[in-house]
């Protein structure tokens, strides 16, 4: 067993623990369940994710959980390209699932990680991804306790697909649900939008533009935990605007709560470069994905303290109150434009296609 197998996560070497001279790429045999699979799991996954629940390498992990409400979530990650400014499919897979738990008001307890690897995936890339996941998990204070690996024929996958499921515990005094939004509530956004989507597009083939925008991919359980600890059940809704962007997330809240939402375009933080990129590409930033931001709908009397709390946290320093919940136009989201007119903010239909004119 290589040294990496005994080292704590902080010292995970850059050198891939699977000897690259022998196996520079993932082969079908690595998914067969035999010796090679074992080597892959032990030398790579166990080495990276090392924790007591994972050690036995049993069919499943057994955990002690406190009594109360459990939150459970699952997500699959198919992002292409695998590596992008600010992250990779691995860190995304951890952040995304941790964040889904956080949006339920839960403290993340444990994650699973299922890999579908494409035959021919460079082993070194896999190691980079796994290391990145391990780091992301550690930073979020969560462990990967069980997992699975399959290998599919060349051409049947996009390099790697990852599924992560997560369980978490919802502390007493927390009651977060989209239906809880009430007229009068304020809508807070933890920071600027559209960074992630633009970062991905900037490395997609054929879209050649230079930018220093990086994905905002981050674990939000810390900042959310702080908010919930301080304000408890006066935080009514938490939502992260991932696919479909801010527009879709606000629409989902409006629909669940059967209330209307009114947003102020001038209040929504947006980086200049992101705005520039969206102009070039003909994209509306409201519909572009975010991976390290969240919406909090809170009772009006705590809007001030909530904003202060968010701003005090490194992941929320650009937080802003972007709107409020109203009784009018239930299920619909309206926004006052920069110029003063009102427009509907619709759900995304299909994929957003860039405009040319």
């Amino acid at each position, binding site marked *: 067993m290589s040294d990496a197998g005994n080292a704590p996560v902080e010292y995970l070497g850059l050198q891939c623990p699977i000897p690259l001279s022998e196996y520079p790429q993932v082969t079908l045999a690595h998914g067969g369940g035999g010796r090679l699979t074992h080597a892959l799991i032990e030398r790579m996954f166990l080495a990276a994710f090392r924790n007591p629940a994972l050690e036995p390498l049993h069919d499943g992990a057994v955990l002690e959980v406190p009594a109360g409400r459990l939150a459970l979530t699952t997500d699959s990650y198919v992002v292409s390209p695998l590596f992008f400014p600010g992250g990779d499919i691995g860190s995304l897979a951890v952040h995304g699932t941790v964040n889904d738990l956080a949006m339920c008001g839960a403290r993340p307890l444990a994650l699973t990680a299922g890999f579908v690897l494409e035959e021919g995936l460079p082993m070194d890339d896999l190691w980079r991804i796994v290391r990145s996941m391990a780091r992301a998990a550690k930073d979020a204070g969560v462990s990967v306790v069980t997992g699975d690996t399959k290998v599919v024929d060349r051409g049947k996958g996009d390099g790697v697909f990852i599924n992560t499921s997560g369980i978490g515990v919802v502390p007493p005094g927390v009651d977060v649900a989209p239906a809880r939004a009430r007229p009068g509530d304020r809508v807070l956004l933890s920071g600027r939008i559209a960074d992630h989507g633009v970062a991905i597009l900037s490395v997609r083939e054929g879209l*050649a*533009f*230079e*930018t*220093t*925008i990086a994905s905002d991919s981050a674990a939000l359980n810390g900042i959310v935990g702080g908010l919930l600890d301080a304000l408890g059940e006066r935080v009514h809704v938490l939502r992260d605007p991932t696919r479909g962007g801010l527009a879709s997330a606000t629409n989902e809240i409006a629909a669940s709560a059967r209330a209307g939402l009114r947003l102020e375009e001038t209040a929504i933080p947006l980086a*200049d*470069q992101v*705005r*520039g*990129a969206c*102009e*070039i590409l003909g994209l509306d930033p409201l519909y572009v994905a975010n991976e390290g931001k969240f919406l909090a709908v809170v009772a009006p009397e705590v809007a001030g303290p909530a904003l202060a709390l968010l701003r005090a946290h490194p992941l929320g320093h650009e937080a802003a109150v972007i709107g409020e919940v109203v009784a009018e136009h239930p299920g619909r989201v309206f926004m006052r434009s920069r110029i003063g007119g009102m427009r509907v903010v619709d759900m995304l239909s299909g994929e957003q296609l860039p405009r*040319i*004119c």
Partner: protein
Amino acid sequence: MQVEPNAQGMAMGTVSFAGVNKEICLAYVPEAKVGDYVIVHVGFAISIVSEQEAEETFEILRRMGELAELEEGPDGPAGPPPAEPGR
């Protein structure tokens, strides 16, 4: 904005959109120089923005606006006339 010809001898340049750089064909704006602002459409610059015209239009815009305020009196938002937008 940097101007340099590409392999086909087609004038290409780097155009910046609020800090995002993109390679754009400048064949249709031969007089364009570094520092100019251009209108870009599907990867081509089709017009150089005339600062002078822009300022004139702006002046007209502003004066008309102020005229409206003057004639209207305290109908609109109270307070001093709005600040000049950044140039």
